[in-house]
């Protein structure tokens, strides 16, 4: 079965032009998402994963700006659209569940009305009645009682509010939903239910999901493919099984070996030395080299390129350790 690409990000650069300097939050990112798959975008705070999500929504605000690259959604480079055209696509083709969105619901408006308002704004419905029937379908999808549409946010639990937020993201039938830490504020039993629901909806509606998270065990449970991001760049991408079985990039290896689990042998774990770099002045060469246990001379001077591990494979990694051109030549 050939896979259909719904989103292609090429050489994307999103910078923040602050008084303290240029923050290179996304600095040359390539990303591909196929129809119906769940792609995890994993990284630690400040690695640029949320900025990448906002860039795909074209919601970067000054002092931030997309400086370079392409974001091709269903064949259209959205960076070439004007604001009006983008407004038509946003939420219809790509939508986002923002981090902490469940705490940003309007506290003085019934949750059902908040969804209907959004539908009206996008001219998706012609009457409030029509809106109600859509809310009814959406609530069914996210397992909420229809009566809940008349509740105010404070009357709902965290899990229910998150369901409302997810319903909003799905309201206009998008092809892709970007979910930014959708379960971090929730308890683990609620998280399990919400993730199962997101996955069921994905299969039912055939949508693609980009899950932005730092929670690797969660990724192991739900993702098809994984992108690991470090200091504004993708350092490795692989299908979820290969990634957890045999991570290639030293950063991925470090991350995966630093997570405690409730299964498997109990042993002493070690964290990674150092801290992620300041993105105003990232290190020369490979951005991970100051923390890397396998650092070589070339790593300090020349930036590695993200490329396939072996020809014809989908595993890509950006590390000199695996670069034939370097080891053969040098």
């Amino acid at each position: 079965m050939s896979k259909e690409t719904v989103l292609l990000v090429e050489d994307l650069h999103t910078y923040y032009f602050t008084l303290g300097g240029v923050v290179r939050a996304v600095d040359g990112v390539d990303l591909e998402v196929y129809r119906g798959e769940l792609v995890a975008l994993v990284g630690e705070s400040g690695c640029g994963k949320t900025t990448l999500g906002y860039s795909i929504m074209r919601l970067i605000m000054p002092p931030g700006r997309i400086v370079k690259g392409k974001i091709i959604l269903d064949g259209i480079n959205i960076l070439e659209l004007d604001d009006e055209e983008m407004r038509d696509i946003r939420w219809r083709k790509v939508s986002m569940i923002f981090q902490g969105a469940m705490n940003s619901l309007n506290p003085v408006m019934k949750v059902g009305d908040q969804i209907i308002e959004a539908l009206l704004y996008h001219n998706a419905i012609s009457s409030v009645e029509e809106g109600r029937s859509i809310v009814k379908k959406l609530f069914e999808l996210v397992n909420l009682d229809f009566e809940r549409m008349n509740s105010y946010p404070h009357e709902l639990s965290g899990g229910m509010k998150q369901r409302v937020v997810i319903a909003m993201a799905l309201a206009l039938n998008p092809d892709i939903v970007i979910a930014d830490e959708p379960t971090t504020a929730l308890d683990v039993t609620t998280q399990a239910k919400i993730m199962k629901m997101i996955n069921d909806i994905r299969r039912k509606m055939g949508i693609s999901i980009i899950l932005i998270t730092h929670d690797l065990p969660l990724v192991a449970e739900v993702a098809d493919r994984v992108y690991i991001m470090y200091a504004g760049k993708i350092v490795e991408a692989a299908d979820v099984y290969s990634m957890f079985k045999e991570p290639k990039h030293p950063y991925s290896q470090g991350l995966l070996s630093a997570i405690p689990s409730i299964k498997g042998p109990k042993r002493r774990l070690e964290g990674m030395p150092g801290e992620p770099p300041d993105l105003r002045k990232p290190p020369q060469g490979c951005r991970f080299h100051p923390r890397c246990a396998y650092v070589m001379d070339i790593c300090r001077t020349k930036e590695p390129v993200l490329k396939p591990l072996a020809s014809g494979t989908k595993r890509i990694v950006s590390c000199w350790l695996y670069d034939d051109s370097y080891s053969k030549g040098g």
Partner: protein
Amino acid sequence: MKPIVSVKNLKKYYPLKKGLLYTILMGEKEYVKAVDGVSFEIYEKEIFVLAGETGSGKTTTGKVLVGLEKPTEGEIYFKDQNISRLNPKEWKRKGLRRKIQMIFQDPYESLNPRSKIYDILAEPLIVNKAVETREELDEKIMRKLEEVKLIPPDEFAFRYPHQLSGGQRQRIVIARGMILDPEFVVADEPVSMLDVSIRIDILNLLNSFREKYGVSYLYITHDLATARYIGDRIGIMYLGQIVETGPVEEVIQNPKHPYTQALISAIPIPDPEYARRKEIIELKGEIPSPINPPKGCRLHPRCPFAMDICSKKEPPMIEVGRGHQASCWLYEKI
């Protein structure tokens, strides 16, 4: 072995704020029963974990233990002293402030942004008259900074908290908690705000104080993976009560209480093949309000195994293995 801390039937109720008229009409006050009859012991050099979800009462228990909240009922012993009814002056006079410390969750909120690291660490030493000379003060501060791996210490001592990363700040929070050489420390979610790659180092650091100085801990968390990594014994809390307790490994690998079973089944495992095979036990509905917790066993309205007795009588703690107890009627021997 004697326990360093023992808690007996601890309760903490918070009165619900209602209007005067309501109180007159309804005749009685309502309470949020945050902690409702909790008992456990912590031994020397032991890390005891209290784990549970939001609203289970784990943090309140920790606050009562360090004297930040007064218990409504029940007793707390530190060694042989009953400390449950002491006022703040007595806490200080008896030296308990030095012996019992707390490490907070949020390294961004728990350090005074206007104080230099040196002053943050000097304050407890000065207030508790733990040092006599300036040299002694300097020496203690530098040594603690070294112990929390902020090296070289003089490079960190004169910075402000905002000049440090999250992980470094949490090391300062730990240094402050340890600077009076406490015997017992309550650590409330000390790594939940930190990035994955630095969590393990902070846990290893807490462990190093246990190994070096014999510090005992109450480790409060919602994360059973870190609980397993660092803990010796564990108590699983649900709606203000401990529903299961025992050695960490035993409770996690062989959970007996239906709540513990559901909780553990929901935890993601960092192994895609295993994760996709495992079954999740779902509890019905959501956690009820701690104002009017269900009668009988508090889990019964959500429990897949609920029996008649469960809605009528609160289950006692029943021995289900060596040092392993669960409060569930399923295990009562007839």
